[in-house]
């Protein structure tokens, strides 16, 4: 079915590349650094995003370790209350804005042009700008450790919590400049996010290779398209709210100043109009990875492609109308409570459709339990639990009981760690060979998975219980007679396992860079276009522009006797 040489397989590409590739050896490090600083190549920017996010992952992980040590035993004085406040603020802000967003944009940057058969993003220079402005935001946030109080002293990072409720952020309660660094850091990262999201949308809509209609678009670009569209609508309110907060702090405006008639609740609305879609902005790319990895390791095409796309678009829409379920304890009145309870419950329907589609993809498949797949299976289990506790919390009366408790913390860590971080790990094991031409070690990968999974469940399964027993989040210590001590100790022990797992991962990534097994262009016998070029791909991706005829172009090429075009 594939006449006129549909795509150039790797042989042609590699023959064309090698003579042109500048020799890496013997290059001054300054030259190499300059290449990375000035690059507009989507693959390099993708790697910059990912590397930058990994550094912040380790920093924010370290902050979580400090939090867990502090909470391990009652009446602990390991860190002071002030430092504890800074740690949970920095941990949350860093993980959302400087780990989650950049790592997902990094994979998007790297993979989307390759998967749609394009040579770069639509606006390469905007791409570089977006990365560097986000990176500057992260540096600014951490500069607050030095500059937060100006000349008065170092070590004063933001301590207002990652959602920075008013009036805690006003000049009166938050003197010095730590909160200003928080505002500016998050503001700049938002500008970078909108730039990259814009780039992704335009790339996906306007740069698809010949024959790749929207119906043949792989699911990863599809989900990135929806995520990016959500970024436009969600980041705007955050940016606007940050501008207002700056006007309050620097020019004496009264947006969130109750003394002058302003409203602290308005900040909550504005923040969560951003904050809840943000969760879906982070989780949709994780779904996107699952959509690519699960079929390849089940040796079946994805089950229910149109349903998957429809569910994604539905999630995108509904997620814009659920924000106030973060605010049930404010007292929204019966109409508000009912609306947001129902909206939150409804969003679990398209999410459930996705889970059933993944299960149906695995069902009857010839499953290969390679590391990317076992992380995906972990994701399926944990995301299900995260969804179930989410439905529990969507019920307003139950939320009044559990709101702001460790139950909530356990719930959203199940989403952010159990679902999103697991799929990010899966994506690393799956695409690392494409990025660096070498496979990550499978044995270390399995150690990583099991250590991390044991640690994850020790920490976050048990974390639900002190929440139900009434332990509020963000307290720096507690009394011994509360009955929370044992659970907190178990959580901290789990943290040790997670750190051990993470170290396996870091070691694996470093080790495989030089000593990993050669991957070749297509180590997983996959079927999307990124595997049709060399590993790592040349700067121009494809020597000839590919032409596709189905959703699995590489499958068609490898199986001319039964191409997908016969069945789609």
């Amino acid at each position, binding site marked *: 079915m594939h006449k*006129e040489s549909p795509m150039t397989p790797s042989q042609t590409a590699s023959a064309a590349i090698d003579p042109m590739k500048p020799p890496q050896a013997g290059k001054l490090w300054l030259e190499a650094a300059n290449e990375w600083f000035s690059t507009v190549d989507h693959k390099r920017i993708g790697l910059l995003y990912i590397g930058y996010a990994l550094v912040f992952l380790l920093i924010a992980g370290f902050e979580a370790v400090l939090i867990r040590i502090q909470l391990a035993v009652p009446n602990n004085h390991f860190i002071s209350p002030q430092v504890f406040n800074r740690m949970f603020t920095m941990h949350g802000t860093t993980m959302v804005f400087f780990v989650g967003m950049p790592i997902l944009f990094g994979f998007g940057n790297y993979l989307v042009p390759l998967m749609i058969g394009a040579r770069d993003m639509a606006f390469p220079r905007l791409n570089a700008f977006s990365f560097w402005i986000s990176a500057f935001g992260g540096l600014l946030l951490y500069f607050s450790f030095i500059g937060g109080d100006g000349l008065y002293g170092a070590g004063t990072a933001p301590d207002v919590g990652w959602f920075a409720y008013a009036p805690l952020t006003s000049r009166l309660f938050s003197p010095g400049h730590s909160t200003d660094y928080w505002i500016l850091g998050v503001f700049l990262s938002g500008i970078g996010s*909108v730039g990259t999201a814009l780039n992704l949308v335009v790339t996906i809509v*306007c740069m698809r290779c010949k024959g790749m209609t929207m119906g043949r678009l792989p699911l990863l670009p599809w989900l990135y398209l929806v995520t990016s569209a959500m970024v436009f609508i969600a980041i705007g309110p955050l940016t606007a709210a940050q501008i207002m907060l700056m006007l309050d702090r620097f020019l004496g*405006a009264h947006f969130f100043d109750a003394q*002058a008639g302003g409203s602290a609740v308005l900040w909550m609305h504005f923040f969560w109009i951003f904050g809840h879609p943000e969760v879906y902005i982070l989780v949709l790319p994780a779904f996107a990875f699952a959509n690519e990895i699960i079929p390849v390791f089940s040796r079946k095409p994805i089950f229910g492609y149109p349903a998957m796309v429809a569910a994604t678009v539905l999630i995108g829409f509904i997620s814009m109308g659920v924000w106030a379920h973060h605010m049930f304890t404010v007292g929204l009145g019966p109409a508000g409570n009912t609306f947001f309870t129902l909206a939150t419950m409804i969003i679990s329907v398209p999410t459930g459709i996705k889970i059933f589609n993944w299960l149906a993809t695995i069902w009857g498949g010839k499953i290969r339990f390679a590391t990317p797949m076992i992380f995906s299976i972990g994701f399926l289990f944990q995301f299900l639990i995260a969804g179930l506790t989410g439905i529990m919390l969507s019920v307003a009366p139950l939320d009044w009981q559990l709101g702001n408790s460790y139950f909530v913390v356990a719930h959203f860590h199940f989403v952010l760690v159990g679902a999103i971080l697991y799929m990010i790990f899966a994506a690393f094991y799956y695409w690392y060979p494409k990025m660096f031409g070498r496979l990550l070690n499978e044995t270390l990968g399995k150690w990583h998975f099991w250590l991390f999974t044991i640690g994850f469940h020790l920490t976050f399964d048990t974390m639900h219980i002190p929440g139900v027993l009434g332990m509020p989040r963000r307290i720096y210590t507690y009394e011994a007679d509360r009955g929370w001590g044992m659970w907190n100790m178990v959580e901290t022990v789990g943290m040790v396992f997670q750190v051990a797992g993470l170290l396996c991962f870091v070691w694996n990534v470093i080790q495989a860079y030089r000593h990993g097994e050669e991957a070749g262009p297509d180590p997983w016998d996959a079927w999307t276009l990124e595997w049709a070029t060399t590993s790592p791909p040349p700067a121009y991706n494809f020597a000839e522009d590919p032409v596709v005829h189905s959703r699995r172009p590489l499958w068609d090429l490898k199986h001319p006797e039964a191409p997908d075009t016969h069945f789609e």
Partner: protein
Amino acid sequence: MSSHSAALTPSASEWQLPDKGKMGMLCLIVAEIAIFAIFVVAYIFYMGKSLSGPTPAQVLKLPIIGTICLLSSSISVHFAVSTLEKGKTQLCSLWLAITVLLGLIFLSGTATEWYELINVDGLTIRTNLFGTTFYSLVGLHATHVAVGLILLSLTLGFGIAGKLSDRHAHRLDVLSYYWHFVDAVWVVVFIVVYVVGR
């Protein structure tokens, strides 16, 4: 529309995709709408909730001339694009100059209004909630007008220097989308601040 992806395989049938520049500008406009929407919501939410004067009814006057100028500039920028498409660069520069002039009249109107509000009526951003929301919403819009004027003046500079040709019509078209958007936002701001809010 786009030629970059259509001409891959000469023998192949047409493969047309939307234009990158226009698509990018539309995305930017969606993101901007989200920002403006929040400021408009804040304005409406705090309408009549100021604890002290002055109130909008006491101090605001309808900016009729500015509004007419800004809305007409949408028409003039449209003519700038269409004349450039036909290769009439001189005429295009003239329309661009008219657009920039109209935009400047609008901005100077805002400047005069703010000068009077601050110095005569004593309304600043810290006076009351009206001042807070008024200056931030109108100021955000004026900032967008200023950015648009910088870009249009740059194009006008190229036009005067004789560097403009019909090759650039597409880029000017993308810029005109932004300008139309800024005008449309003014319609909303005008209705919310000067009609409903007064």
